[in-house]
């Protein structure tokens, strides 16, 4: 699928968020936000700190339950769901602060990401016999493909706790990819990286989108990156949507410029 097709109007809507409101006690994190993500596009969510971006991702994958509004994914509107149900429906994500399994190796982290694709048979697994062994090997092959794709072969057996930050971010992307998601949520995939690392990561994101056709929704602060790689951008500020459109449109929007330069809201 090419970028032009993906971004175009009339493409299938994969995810539709309508009138979401979320509050913690008295604090309103999100107020009546609506937007959609189309199949095959890269959709960026941007906004200043505290705009409600991460809370929005948390709603999409079922970690938070919004008080109002609906989320329609693959044509099915849902009320509430648990994160593991979202995962079963093909939503994977990475986290703002790397959330890897620190005691496990890179390979095991990726294999864990693959868990939902594996079938359980307790007794065969305990004996490591027949189908259980075959399944383990088949998934190992897939995961090795992801390892090659992300160019992390040399750290295959290293416990991830020992890896530098940039590589941890990459392993985390690998863990999400191992699940073969339809919708990939990336929460600041380039935070804390230097320029080269950002270039690598941007390349991986675009490759994932183009080669696997994975739909991506990402939060990012680096405007240069956002403008370069995303098809459409939604801008949040103080929990409200203030703009939505192509990178060019959003870049020229006066509200967006005000929000980033800190003009007071009255």
């Amino acid at each position, binding site marked *: 699928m090419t970028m032009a097709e993906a971004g175009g109007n009339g493409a299938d809507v994969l995810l539709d968020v309508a009138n979401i409101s979320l509050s913690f006690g008295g604090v309103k994190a999100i107020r009546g936000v609506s937007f959609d993500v189309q199949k095959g596009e890269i959709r960026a969510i941007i906004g200043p700190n505290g705009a409600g971006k991460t809370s929005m991702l948390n709603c999409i994958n079922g*970690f938070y339950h919004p008080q109002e509004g609906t989320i329609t994914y693959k044509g099915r509107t849902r009320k509430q769901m648990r994160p593991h149900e979202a995962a079963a429906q093909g939503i994977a994500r990475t986290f703002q*602060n790397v959330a890897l399994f620190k005691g496990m190796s890179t390979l095991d982290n990726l294999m864990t990401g693959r868990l939902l694709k594996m079938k359980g048979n307790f007794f065969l697994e305990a004996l490591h016999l027949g189908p259980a062994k075959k399944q383990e090997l088949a998934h190992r092959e897939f995961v090795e493909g992801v390892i090659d794709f992300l160019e992390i072969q040399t750290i295959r057996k290293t416990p991830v706790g020992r890896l530098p930050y940039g590589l941890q971010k990459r392993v985390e992307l690998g863990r999400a990819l191992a699940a073969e998601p339809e919708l990939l949520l990336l929460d600041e995939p380039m935070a804390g990286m230097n320029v080269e690392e950002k270039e690598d990561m941007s390349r991986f994101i675009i490759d994932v989108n183009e080669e696997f056709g994975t739909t991506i929704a990402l939060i990012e602060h680096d405007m240069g990156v956002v403008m370069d790689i995303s098809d459409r951008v939604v801008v949040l500020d103080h929990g409200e949507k203030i703009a939505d459109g192509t990178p060019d449109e959003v870049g020229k929007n006066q509200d967006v410029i005000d929000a980033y330069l800190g003009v007071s809201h009255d």
Partner: protein
Amino acid sequence: MDVLYAVFIAPFVDMATAPIFFAEVIIGGLIAGVMYSLVALGFVLIFKASGVFNFAQGVLALFAGLTLVGLMEFMGQTSTQQLPWYLIALAIIGTAAVMVALAFAIERIVLRPLVNQEQIILFMSTIGLALFLEGFGDVLWGSDVKALDIGIPDASFEWGGILLNQFDLVAAATAAVLVAVLAVFFQKTRVGRALRAVADDHQAALSVGIPLKSIWVIVWSVAGIVAMVAGIMWGAKSGVQFSLSLIALKALPVLILGGFTSVPGAIVGGLIIGVGEKIAEIYWGPLIGGAIENWFAYMLAMVFLLFRPQGLFGEKIIERV
């Protein structure tokens, strides 16, 4: 039907028909509860300031009791000869000094080398500490049961038809005063503020220049003195012996009820467990064979947690990613 009646109706009939006895049960529970609170408080202090789940708290109480008895015997106390009050006071001060010295030693020998280790490692090290202190106390002072007499009369009197014990009241009052002093210490003093800062965030506290090591020595000293008070009260009532170290186990359900880091939680939780346990033992215990004190408190705390995982005074936790 008989079973249902015995479980759900009869105990309440008993309570209503003998209100004075019921009141005595509740008071007995409250007094035991004060003791639990005291031990739980020692736990909370250390957990708050250093994240250490201190299993040795009960052994600290035993160790303090043994030390006090040893010092009093050294000063000439025998089973017939009562020491004058100032010598008893001196012995108590001496014991407190030993507890402070112990706090220094624990910080230097156990905690400092284990800083930044996982909580379970620290927990296991306090079990090691408990074993060590138990053996050490016995080697120093011998392992037979010792009577501890600090001169508070163990006399009963009647008040409005309810039988009360003078010693129990003095013990409860002492504990209450201690708790109040500690609360003031934490809220109003500089050290208390530093301590609360450390409890919130070790790294942040270090970065604004709070000396972590001396804070730890202080909390372990305070916890040692709290343990000493508990050891004296308990020891004077039923003798200083190994079983004293087991009161720590009584304090654990108090902790899950009240929260590991909440001072008011430790106090209220202690009272709830004390009263609940006595009532259950007296009105329901005979139905299922008795001696349910050992586990009832745990079950009570566990069921409570299923409905309110943040404990009595904790705030609802918002998880973030």
